Each structure stands twice: as structure tokens, then as C-alpha cells.
């Protein structure tokens, strides 16, 4: 099945032109500033061209930048993998018809509705605070020690908050995908005597392939920008334990008021995200190629 080239252009071009017009100009300006020195609160220093200095500092001398990249990869991977797992479980559970399915689904999607910063405030204070939080109340009454998750296991704390929020995202896409799996194929498998696990592994999972790919790819791109939770709950700390690249850029522009360095960091973030996305696409294609065969 083919489509005339002119028709394709007509359908695709508007979107591409719109995107290009709106994203390239800011990006080019950012690129421009990445070669400048501009400190907002020191206007007497002016805006001056300094070549690759911002980049060489960021990439070769800034130890916090390196930590930020590593933290970013760890935290993003943790969130995406765990969200996928729980999202898949939830999607399967909520795909079955049962009384109150609509209500259950709405409740399950709810975490995704909450603003990330509100999510973080609630988790940090009402739940995770070791003195007056709900979780520590629970654990101390079970005989366990009073643990300060955000201080002792900050990455785990951030990942938990974000997984709680992003599982519904995965669930939503996978649920929509499950609805696209024709019932007659599943029924045929049941007739053939396949049990639930076999049916899932051999039929549902491969047919969900495109949607798993989609949800993992999209979630990764979004989670790479994760900011609100870190901003409220840990401010990138303790130390630099939860300082990810977006948060580090935020610190550079809002505390250091340094437009040049933050622009350079932003450009590096784009390069890093591209590498991760390319790697991910290849990994996903290979995983689902195998199972399709």
C-alpha cells in the first residue's frame, strides 16, 4: 500500500514545520549562549564570547557534572524498568472485566494526575518524614527502626516517588494496547489448551510489543527530564546523590545565574539523551524482533 508523495507531504509537513519553527530557534539561541559567558547577577561582566571554555569545564573538570550524568542514568533506568513492570501487571489486572472496573482504573491512573511537585511534598512530608510521616509510624509500630529514606537511600526515595507517578503512564498505554489485541486470537489460544502464562508469553506479550516499545521510549524521554520530585524532596542531595543532569542545569541557572555554563550543560544533555534514545531503540528492536520470530 503506498501513498502519493505529495499527499504524504501534505499530511506530515505541517507538524514538522510547526515543531521546527518552535524548537529550533530556542535551541540555536541556547547553542549560541553556550559559547558565551553571561552571569545574570553580574551584568558588569557583560556577555562575552569564550569559545569552548564552558564545554571543556563541564566535560573535563566538573566532577559534579559527571556525577549528575551517572545519577541520571541510574535513576532513569530504575524508574522506567520498575514502572514498566508494575504498569504491565496493573494493565493485565485491569484488563479483565470485574465489578467496579471503571472505578478501579480511575483510581489507578490517579497518581499521574498529581503535579510532580505536589507529589513530592506529599511523599516527603506526609509519608517519608522520619519524625511525623506515615511510613515511619508504620515501621516503628512493626518493630523496625525509624529510617530516613530520603537521607539514607535518597535515590530509592526519588525512584519510589517517580515510579508511583509513572506506573499509570505505562499502564495507560499498555491497557490501550491490550484493547487492540483481538479477543478471537486469545480465545483461540484458550481453546487450544494454553494456560494463562503461556497465553501471555506467546500471544499477548508479542502483540503488546509495539506498545511496550512505545511506552518505554516515551517514558525514558520524559523521565530523563525528571525535575519536580528532586527539586522538592532532596534538592539534588544529600551531597550530589540525587543531582541529575536537569537538576544540575537548574542549579547552574538559578543559583549560579550562569547562562553560559547552563546552556552548555543543556547542549550536553541533548547529546546524552540522543545517545540513550538511539541505544534504547536498538535494544527494543532487537528484543521484539526475537520474540516476533
Amino acid at each position, binding site marked *: 500500500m503506498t501513498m502519493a508523495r505529495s499527499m504524504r507531504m501534505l499530511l506530515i509537513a505541517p507538524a514538522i514545520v510547526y515543531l521546527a519553527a518552535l524548537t529550533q530557534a530556542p535551541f540555536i539561541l541556547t547553542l549560541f549562549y553556550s559559547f558565551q559567558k553571561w552571569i545574570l*547577577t553580574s551584568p558588569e561582566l557583560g556577555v562575552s564570547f569564550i569559545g569552548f571554555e564552558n564545554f571543556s569545564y563541564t566535560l573535563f573538570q566538573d566532577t559534579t557534572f559527571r556525577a549528575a550524568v551517572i545519577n541520571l542514568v541510574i535513576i532513569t533506568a530504575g524508574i522506567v524498568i520498575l514502572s514498566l513492570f508494575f504498569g504491565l501487571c496493573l494493565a493485565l489486572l485491569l484488563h479483565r472485566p470485574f465489578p467496579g472496573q471503571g472505578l478501579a482504573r480511575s483510581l489507578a491512573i490517579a497518581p499521574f494526575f498529581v503535579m510532580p511537585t505536589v507529589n513530592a511534598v506529599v511523599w516527603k512530608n506526609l509519608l517519608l*518524614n522520619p519524625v511525623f510521616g506515615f511510613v515511619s509510624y508504620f515501621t516503628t509500630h512493626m518493630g523496625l527502626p525509624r529510617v530516613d529514606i530520603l*537521607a539514607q537511600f535518597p535515590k530509592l526515595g526519588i525512584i519510589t516517588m517517580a515510579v508511583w507517578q509513572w506506573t499509570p503512564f505505562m499502564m495507560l498505554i499498555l491497557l490501550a494496547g491490550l484493547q487492540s489485541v483481538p479477543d478471537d486470537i486469545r480465545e483461540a489460544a484458550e481453546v487450544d489448551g494454553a494456560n494463562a502464562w503461556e497465553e501471555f508469553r506467546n500471544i499477548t506479550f508479542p502483540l503488546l510489543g509495539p506498545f511496550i516499545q512505545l511506552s518505554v521510549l516515551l517514558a525514558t524521554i520524559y523521565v530523563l527530564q525528571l525535575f519536580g520530585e528532586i527539586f522538592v524532596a532532596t534538592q*539534588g542531595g*544529600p*551531597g550530589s*546523590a540525587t543531582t541529575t543532569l536537569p537538576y544540575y542545569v537548574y542549579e547552574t541557572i538559578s543559583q549560579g*545565574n550562569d547562562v553560559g555554563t547552563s546552556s552548555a550543560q543543556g547542549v550536553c544533555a541533548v547529546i546524552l539523551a540522543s545517545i540513550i534514545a538511539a541505544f534504547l531503540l536498538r535494544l527494543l528492536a532487537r528484543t521484539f524482533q526475537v520474540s516476533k520470530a
Partner: protein
Amino acid sequence: MKTPTRVIAFIGASAIVFSAAPVPRAEAQSTTTLTIATVNNPQMVDMQHEVGDFEKSTGIKVNFETLPENTLRQKVTADIATGGGQFDIATVGTYEVPIWAKNKWIVNLDDYFSKLDAKAKADYDLADVLPSIKKGLSYSGSLYAVPFYGESSMTFYNKKLFKAAGLTMPDHPTWDQIVGFAQKLNDPSKNLYGICLRGLPGWGEMGAPMSTVINTFGGQWFDMSWKPTLDSGATKDAITFYIDTIKKYGEPGASSAGFTECETNFTQGKTAIWVDATSASGLITDPKNSPIAADVGFAYSPTKVTPKGSHWLWAWALTVEGSSKHKDEAFKFLTWATSKHYIGLIAADRGWGNVPPGTRLSTFNNANYKKAAPYGNIILQSIQTADPTNATLNKVPYTGVQFVGIPEFQAIGTQVTQNLAAALTGSTTVDAALALSQTQVTRTMQQAGYYK
């Protein structure tokens, strides 16, 4: 959704969109609107409730944009640095005023004060505003902002817990005494902790009380050639003491504990001692918000080697942006919100215990205020003796009591306290954190051109 419905929906949406698009409109006849950037502290909330009084008497409308402190500072800075235009008035602190004045971002208020007629000058009574606060809001001898409320720092303690343990808090405690009390009152098995000190990273969070400890121990952030002095001598002792005290007798979750968390701990009766902003006094003695309102005791901020810099100086102030198109109207608002008349309004509506504290001598001398705020004298003394130009044992090249008055300090203070938070949670040692901080701060100062 069927296609026709979709089309209708789209048309409907477009209609909304394009009707909402800004049409260049002529400036409304005679009603000027002022836009104020402000934080959501209780005193500012009161200001918003009372603004009707201003709008009625001047016919000027006021728009408040309320944001958390750090977000506000970032937004206002970004706005001013890219040409301004968003705000007429900004709520700033004693940290920003001298820096923004130097950058010519805010308006010199001396000119506006001199243009007031004799009655207005007498009514406002600029001389009534505490001199140390005025000093903190000046640059090159001129006033650039008017204080909305001012504060220093002091010691709060739970009288009931002290009595039960047979302890008495002196009026002017030393840090050694405080640690002694904290040790005796610390009882984690009962979810009770000796002392709450800010451990939340941030130049204005942990940085503030910690800097006062550095000062009173005889230390300083920088030497006269702007080299940081964090990892040696009195400064190192002070920082080590601060971190160790929290670790031994302080609240769990310290690395996330800022003003609000410590206030919660204290008012919930989980902490015996709390050293923090004097502005907390109104909140913790309010029975509506504080279960221990009746048991709160007050003392001066602890000292060690010198009383200099042992308690901080901060004021939230209102300033007029240089890019404002309504400077005269803005100045009217400034003088309204910081006038004796305004304080009277709050006293009538919310009681003398809730008036904006720490700005005017007349407030402190008011009999009703003294009754509602018996701790007022400690606050007054503390503010009057907090001198940003003389807060350290040895001479320093900077001003500021609990911060260093340079634009780079935002980043430096946050970075250093961030490193120390890691020491607080035990993932690194204080020594290592300070060594790292030295390197980072030196680099920042080099980049900023203080030295090669």
C-alpha cells in the same frame, strides 16, 4: 467522537483560543495596576488580605504574584536580567538589595522620600525604622528598599520538657550549655530529640544558622584576599560542631529539615530546643497552630567565643524595579505597607502578636505589642546588635551576618551546604566535605574574577 462533533469542538476551541489571545489594549483610563512579586509567608498573606485598604484610598489596583522564595528569586532575576517589565515591586531580602542596587536593577528610594511633603514624612517616620535593618537595605549610603518585616535569630525551648528534667535555660546561653541540655533531653526511643537545627541544604536554609555558628566561633567564610577558609581553624571547628551536634542530639531527617520541618518538630513537642528565626515566635505561640503554645520559652541565640555575628539579620523588604512604568504609585504602596497605619490595621484585625515584626521601634515600644509578645525585647536587642558590617571576630572583605553579600554566594552557599548534608547523613565525613567545598568555592571565585 464522530467527525462533525470533532469539527465543532475544534471550532469551539479555536474560538476560545483566539478570544483569549491578547489584544493590545489601551492602558485602562485612570486605574493603574501594580504587579508585586511576593512570597507566601504568613505576614505577606496578611498584606494581601489588607490590600483593600490601599486600593480604596489610592484607587490603585494591586496584583500579587505569589511564589516560593527560590522560585521567586529565580524568576525575578531572569526577568530583570532580560529587560524586566513583569513586576513593579519585588519582595527581596537583605541579601539581594545591595547586589541589585549595584546592578542598577532597583530604584534609589532616597529621592522619593525627599519628595514627600512634611506631613507624609512625619507620618511615615523613617527614623522609626530600626537603623541596623536600614543598613542592611542600603547601598552606598542610600536606601533601596523598605523593610516589611525583620528578624534575627534566637533560641526557643520547651519549658515543660526543661522543667521535667530539672534544667533551666539561661537568658544568654553558650553553645556548650546548649549541647549539654540537648544531650540530657535527647531520647530517641520516645521520638524525642534534644535540638532541632536546620540541615536542609541551601545558602538561606542551613547556611544561615551555620554561618552564625561560624561567626560566633571566631571563624569566617573568606579571608581578606577572598580565599575561602572552610577547612581550617575556627571555621572548621564551628562547622564540625554544627554537624556533630545535629547528628548526636538532633532530629532525624535532618538533611531535609528546614525552618518548616523544625517548626513542626518543635510545635509537636518532639524537640526540646530550636535555634532559628525570631519571626517564628508568633507562629509557635499561636494555640491554633501550636499544641505547645503555652510552653514556649525564649532566650538569646547561643554564643561561643564572641557575640559578634551570633544572631543573624534578615528583612523581607519591598523594592521598586527600575523597569517599572509606575514608580510613583509603587512607592505609594511601599510606604503604605510599611507604615504605622498598616501595623495598626493588622493589630486590629489579627492582634498585636501577628503584626509584621522587627522593623519599627514604635512597634516594640507599644504596650499592646509587649503584652502580646513578651519575648519582644529579645528580638529588639538581637536585631539592634546584628551588624552586617561587623559580624566576625577577624576582619573580612564582605558584609552580611548569615550570608556573604556577593552574587556568587547563592551558588557557593548552596554547594557547600549540599556537601555538608552528605556529611550529615553519614555518606561522607565533614573533613572530606570541607575539602571538596574548598576546591569548588575557589574555582567559583576564580571564574567570577576575584583572583586569577
